[in-house]
């Protein structure tokens, strides 16, 4: 069993995401940093769909009521297990009664904690991920808080491992987000298209204070719609990473909590850069860059290869 002593800024249960029910509006609610989540699963020898904690902020603290192996990935944190410092992106053994503490988040925003065992949670619509907005899945459909206890069943032994530093992706601002053009890209003036994502003359956007698991609002130079288009579109399907432009011209990057949108979809963040979205925090800078679909596909293949390669590297270092 684990017990939350402090939930940090916010902690919730995530997994690989709930797919197949978009027609009734059920969003994936997946781990936002899929690479870090994938690395966590590999460190723990799990199948790629296991529930894990997604945590924001320092001060997170947890007590282990029994011995188990765990791993931590995602944002680079300064953490300790009792008095022993822990390195980021590694697995470690926790003794019964020991306390994990996160003292500082050094780089990035969200980090992931998983356990070599089965978290005793119920599947809701096939998955463990928390739909925070509607209050289902995860742990009682809500974020975790002080005193919450979760049983970890069937704990198993697994050799300890660490992901080498050069395999850990950068998470620091400024964030360069590569995009492909969206269905309403042509709704914007030539000047707006340049401001949005052309290397020369593009605007730097600030991540606003309005961010959550649903979306990230940016501030900066508004994009101007062409005169002959409607600013709102007939509501339609969206996918993670869709960049929507509401009437005020400022981009909103949609994450894993919506299946339908009603604003012009100027672009979509390429899949290889979706992991990065987990680490955008208020005050960070964002730059967009329009790339060709072939390049986006190539970058995704490369990301998948890097993730697959972790299986080999993480065992060697223990």
């Amino acid at each position, binding site marked *: 069993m684990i017990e939350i002593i402090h939930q940090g800024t916010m902690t919730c249960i995530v997994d690989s995401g709930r797919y197949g*029910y978009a*027609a*009734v*509006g059920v*969003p994936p609610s997946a781990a936002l940093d899929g690479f870090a989540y994938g690395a966590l699963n590999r460190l723990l020898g799990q199948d790629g769909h296991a529930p894990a904690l997604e945590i924001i902020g320092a001060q997170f603290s947890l007590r282990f009521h029994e011995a188990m192996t765990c791993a931590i990935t995602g944002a680079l944190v300064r953490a300790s297990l009792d008095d022993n410092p822990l390195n980021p992106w590694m697995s470690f053994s926790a003794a019964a009664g020991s306390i994990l503490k996160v003292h500082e988040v050094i780089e990035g925003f969200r980090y992931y904690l998983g356990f070599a065992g089965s978290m005793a949670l119920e599947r809701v*619509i096939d998955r463990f991920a928390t739909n925070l*907005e509607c209050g289902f899945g995860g742990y009682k459909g809500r974020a975790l808080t002080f005193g919450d206890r979760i049983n970890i069943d069937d704990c198993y032994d697994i050799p300890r491992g660490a992901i080498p530093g050069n395999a850990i992706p950068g998470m620091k601002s400024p964030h360069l987000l590569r995009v492909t053009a969206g269905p309403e890209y042509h709704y914007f003036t030539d000047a707006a298209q340049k401001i949005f994502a052309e290397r020369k003359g593009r605007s730097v956007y600030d991540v606003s204070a309005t961010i959550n698991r649903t979306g990230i609002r940016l501030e900066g130079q508004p994009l101007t719609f062409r005169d002959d288009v409607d600013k709102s579109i007939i509501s339609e399907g969206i996918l993670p990473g869709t960049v929507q432009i509401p009437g005020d011209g400022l981009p909103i990057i949609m994450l894993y909590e919506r299946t*339908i949108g009603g604003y012009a979809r100027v672009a979509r963040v*390429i899949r290889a850069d979706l992991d990065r979205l987990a680490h955008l925090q208020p005050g960070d800078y964002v730059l967009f860059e329009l790339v060709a679909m072939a390049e986006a596909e190539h970058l995704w293949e490369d990301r998948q290869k890097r993730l697959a390669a972790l299986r080999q590297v993480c065992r060697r270092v223990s």
Partner: protein
Amino acid sequence: MTVLATASQMNISRFGEDGIRILFGETYDLEIHEKVRNFYFFMRSLALPEIIDLTPSFRSCLIHFDTRLTNFACLSSLLREKEDESLCTGNTPDPTLHEIPVHYGGPDALDMKVVCRQTGLAQSDVIAIHSAVIYTVFAVGFIPGFPYMGTLDRRIHVPRLETPRTRIVAGSVGIAQGQTGVYPFPSPAGWRIIGRTDARLFNPGKEPYSLLQIGDKVKYISA
């Protein structure tokens, strides 16, 4: 085999690396929506492993596909090949008619007064007009189980809120422009709220989860 270069009824385009958008019309109406529905239920009937998700809506269907199993070129040529078949009604269920009781007005109907003022109608007229129509569920989304329904009588068309509310109660019945919908959960809301229902629109514990499916018909009953 299609021999003649007849105008296709499906406009196929990409939406990122793993998305295909199939557009069935420039605007939306029942005829276009019927194509969306036929297409959606046909695709579902194929149960292709390479299709991760389908999001049907007013005039389009978005396909989320697994790039490990297929690619845009393969999937779009499959769609072209099956275009005629996919627009047939063979797999499309008959829509279900639901009656949804609504408490109009009252403390939860945050915008009833504003709607009366904007339309110049008495509350009883707004209620009568809103509950007279049998609506069509054009899409389900925004949040799980939320039905985008049309078409609202022109006399009660009102704009969305300039600034959406951060939280309204579950069951809130809203209107905005030509549409009406019900919020299944407490959630942010940009539509004008004129009533509340006790009906449960989404139950994550029980299939098919959503009370309303695309194409279903809804009649509000003043409770």
